[in-house]
Structure formats: structure tokens, C-alpha cells
């Protein structure tokens, strides 16, 4: 058995090494540098796996610099590198050198969501609850969106930027002019739905109408209220698609 004092002392000695490891601004001896390099390389590799398009856009060196910043301010805490780096979008927003490429923050946000959705276990659909649509007044029926899907809205043509980069081996092969035109021509907000199909995360654009439909579902509007608010929506077709792509989990009946 250890006394509390002995345990605390050991914790402090271990903590001292960890502090010297994470705060890479302090000078370090050769042995400690091996650990620092290893930590930074692990972190940079994790970021590049989670954010492949960001890596294409700004390069590995810039990603390593961002990894160093993230380590200092948002160190890993789960033991799984795949869960680290969710704050990259915020860091990009705060980094002056990247400010002129305003879309980067949204690309980072999209890649993090893709990463999360791609690792999630798809929620099953309780198809028995579909009978609520026939058995209960629609003003008492609510739709429940799957927790394993996500939506993103952006002022940039986010899908075009992402698709242009995701399979590139080298940024030199990018169609810069085409992409620049797509960005310049883009007007208004773009909306994307991210969901999982065949164990792989997928992206598809949402119209402004579909996006608002999802927002209203998540606000808890009943089916009757949804249909009232969105008369242009083809509910039967939407429901069929939502079931096929596991976008919803169930319908519920609620009481006033």
C-alpha cells in the first residue's frame, strides 16, 4: 500500500515530465526531445488523417504548426488520437495567417463532422412507430432525427471545395481556376447533410427548404405543423428516403 503522500509525490513527478513534454516552448535535453518529436508527429499524423482536405489545402507543415498549438491548448484526453483535434476549426478562425482563406474554417468543421459520423454506430429505425401516421392525429406525431447524422451550413460552396480536394495525391493537380470560379460564383448559404451509408460517411446537398425542414423537426414541431409550414414538401417521398438512409430513428406520439 502507498500512503497518500507517496502517491501524490509520484503523481507530481510524472506530471513534471508531462508538462515538459506538452509545453514545447521550453528548452529540452536530447532524450526529452525524442518524446516531444514523437508526440508532435503523432498529433500531426492524427490531424492529417482526420482532416485530409485541410492538409491538401494548407500543407503538412502548416498542419504540424496547428497540431503544436492544439497540443498546448487542447491536449488529448481520451487515449484515442481519432477523438482529438475537434477544436481545429476554432483554431483556424483565430489564426491570422489563415484568415484570408475564410472557407478553411468551414472545411475543418465539415471534416470533423464527417469524421464523427463515419465512426458512429448507425441508430436503428423503429419501423413499428410509422403506424402513428395512420393511427394518431398528425398534430400529435413527432419525427426523431438520427443522432448519427449532421447538417452543416456555410457561406461557401463547401461541397465543391471538399470534393475537389479529397482524392488528390498532390495539391498541384488541383483545378485551381475551376475552384476559384466556383467560389466566386457562389451566392448565399449552402447546406449539407452528412450521414453514414454502408459504413462510410456520405455528403449530399440540402436545399434551403430541406434544411429548414430538418431544423423544424429538431425544434420538435409535429408532423401537422411541419406540413403546414412546408406545403411544398413531398412528405411521402422524404419519409421513404429518410428510412432508406437511416436519417430518422422513430416517430413518437405526444400529448398536449
Amino acid at each position, binding site marked *: *500500500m*502507498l500512503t497518500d503522500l*507517496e*502517491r501524490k*509525490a*509520484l*503523481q507530481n*513527478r*510524472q*506530471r513534471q*515530465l*508531462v*508538462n515538459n*513534454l*506538452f509545453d514545447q516552448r521550453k528548452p529540452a*535535453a*536530447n*532524450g*526529452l526531445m*525524442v*518524446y516531444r518529436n*514523437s*508526440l508532435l508527429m*503523432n*498529433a500531426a499524423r492524427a490531424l492529417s488523417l482526420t482532416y485530409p482536405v485541410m492538409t491538401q489545402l494548407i500543407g503538412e507543415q502548416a498542419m504540424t504548426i496547428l497540431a503544436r498549438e492544439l497540443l498546448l491548448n487542447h*491536449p*488529448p*484526453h*481520451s*487515449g*484515442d*488520437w*481519432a477523438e482529438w483535434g475537434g477544436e481545429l476549426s476554432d483554431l483556424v478562425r483565430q489564426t491570422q495567417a489563415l484568415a484570408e482563406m475564410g472557407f478553411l474554417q468551414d472545411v475543418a468543421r465539415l471534416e470533423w463532422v464527417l469524421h464523427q459520423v*463515419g*465512426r*458512429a*454506430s*448507425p441508430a436503428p429505425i423503429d419501423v413499428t412507430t410509422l403506424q402513428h401516421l395512420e393511427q394518431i392525429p398528425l398534430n400529435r406525431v413527432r419525427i426523431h432525427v438520427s443522432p*448519427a447524422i449532421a447538417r452543416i451550413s456555410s457561406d461557401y460552396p463547401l461541397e465543391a471545395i471538399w470534393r475537389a480536394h479529397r482524392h488528390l495525391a498532390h495539391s498541384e493537380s488541383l483545378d485551381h481556376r475551376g475552384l476559384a470560379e466556383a467560389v466566386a460564383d457562389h451566392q448565399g448559404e449552402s447546406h449539407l447533410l452528412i450521414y*453514414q451509408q454502408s*459504413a*462510410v*460517411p456520405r455528403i449530399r446537398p440540402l436545399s434551403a427548404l430541406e434544411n429548414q425542414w430538418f431544423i423544424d423537426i429538431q425544434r420538435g414541431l409535429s408532423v401537422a405543423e411541419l406540413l403546414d409550414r412546408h406545403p411544398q414538401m413531398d412528405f411521402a417521398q422524404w419519409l421513404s428516403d429518410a428510412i432508406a438512409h437511416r436519417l430518422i430513428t422513430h416517430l413518437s406520439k405526444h400529448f398536449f
Partner: protein
Amino acid sequence: MTCSKNSVVGVGLRYPHYEMALNGSSSIDFVEVHAENFFAEGGITAVLLDDIRSHYKLSLHGTALGLGSAMGVNEHYLERLKHLVERSDPWLLSDHAAFTWSRFNHQDVHAGDLLPLEFSHQAMTVMAENVDRVQQRLGQKILVENISQYVTFHPATLSETEFLVSLVERTQCGLLVDLNNLLVNAHNAGCDDPLSYAKAWLREIPPHSIGEFHLAGSTPVPASEILVDDHAQPVTDSGWSLFRFATELAGPRPTLIEWDNQLPTWPELVQQAERARAIIHEVHTNAH
């Protein structure tokens, strides 16, 4: 000496080799994967894990348990490892004699690496508590691997082998002996003859406590520079020589080739495992 179920060889399975490993035929007996890479509840890794298990015996190798952490093993991590173990029913389960959970900037952190332990009675008590807790939670014996280390953490009151032997006695865990780590540590300690150092280290370990060997190679450096266990090269001649000695001493044990950086082709990797198998058979034949 028997040459049966322990005469098995495997390789660390890394992503670029998945297609070859899972679609072609292979002579290897088992593969090792890093546990954390399969923590996701869904997605492609969950599918891959099932595919891997249908082809090979599975060794789950953790890199983040932090068994020597004075603040204990992270509960959330342990719960997820338990879930993965239940899902994958691994043939072997291992992690390292290292610490990794600590505090930084007033928050709990995972240090992202295998940090060295001080070889003291206090650290031993902590390590034994953590190993006990993990084995009880997982309902399974684990193997604990000796690490390469690049700083001396604290004046030692035990040798590394005394520390590990005591750990085995107190917890009934097994040891995963990484032979390259012994050579790396000997180099970095300034030993003139790393191979002799490593052999002496092995003689201090009861053979029955060894449950697996790891073999790897490191990028060579001049004697005055720090040698890093980068798993980026084939097993060295010293590594093979040490493996023959270890097999003579302990008998055949499941043996794995670790190669993580500057990956070779799949056939080259398998060839390394086959060389290990040949040595096991030679030692077995000579012993009879």
C-alpha cells in the same frame, strides 16, 4: 521443449497492408492491431475488424492504457477497451510498462506516448494496482511489454527486470518481451555490447512469465546519438541473434514482427515472420 501452439508467428497489421492481408493467402498465424484504432462503435473499422478476425488469430495491443500512471487508468478508456475485447475476443491482449495519464494545464490529459516509469517500490505498487484492476475488469490475463526509454525518470531503487518480475508475481500477468527495445536501451545507455546486455537482461526473467516476443528494427545512428525505436527497418542481425538466444532460453513463444514506418511490401513483412518461424524450428530441432 515443445514446439506446438507457441510456435506461431505474426505481424503488426497496418492499414496499407489490409488489402493484401485480407484478400490473398498468407502463411502467418496471427496479426496484431492497435486497440485504439478499433474503438469506433461504427463505420469502416468495425467492419474491418470482423474481416481480420475471420482470417487470423487476433492480438489486441493497446498503446494507451498507461498501466504505470499514478493517477490510475482512465475509466472511460478502460470501458471502451472492455467493449472491444468483448466484441473481438482476442487471442492475446497486451499493453506497456509505461505511464501516460496525467495532468497538464489543470486538466486530465493523455500524454500520447509511452512514458518511462521510475523503477521504485512506489511505482511498482501503482503498476500492480492498475494491472490488477485491468485484468479483473477485462476478465483476462494481459501481457505487459518492456518499453524503449530515452530519459531516466528518477533514481531507480529496482532494476527493470526486478520491477517486471515483481509485477508478474503480484498480478499473475505475463510479459511481452520486446527484444529490439532491449537493444535500443542498451545503445542509449552507452553499452559497448548491447547484445550481451540484452542477453543478461533476459536471463533475469523467469521463462514461464514470457508470453510473447516482439521483433523490430530501428534506423541506425552513430554510437554517440540516441537510437529511436522507430519500427522502420527490418530486424537487425543482433535482433535475430537475440531472438535465437531468447527462444533457446524460454522456448517457443508467439512472435510478432513490428513494422510501423517506411512500411515494406506485405510479402517482405511476411518473410520476416517466416524467418522467425525458421529460427523457432531450428532451436526446437537442435534441442531434440
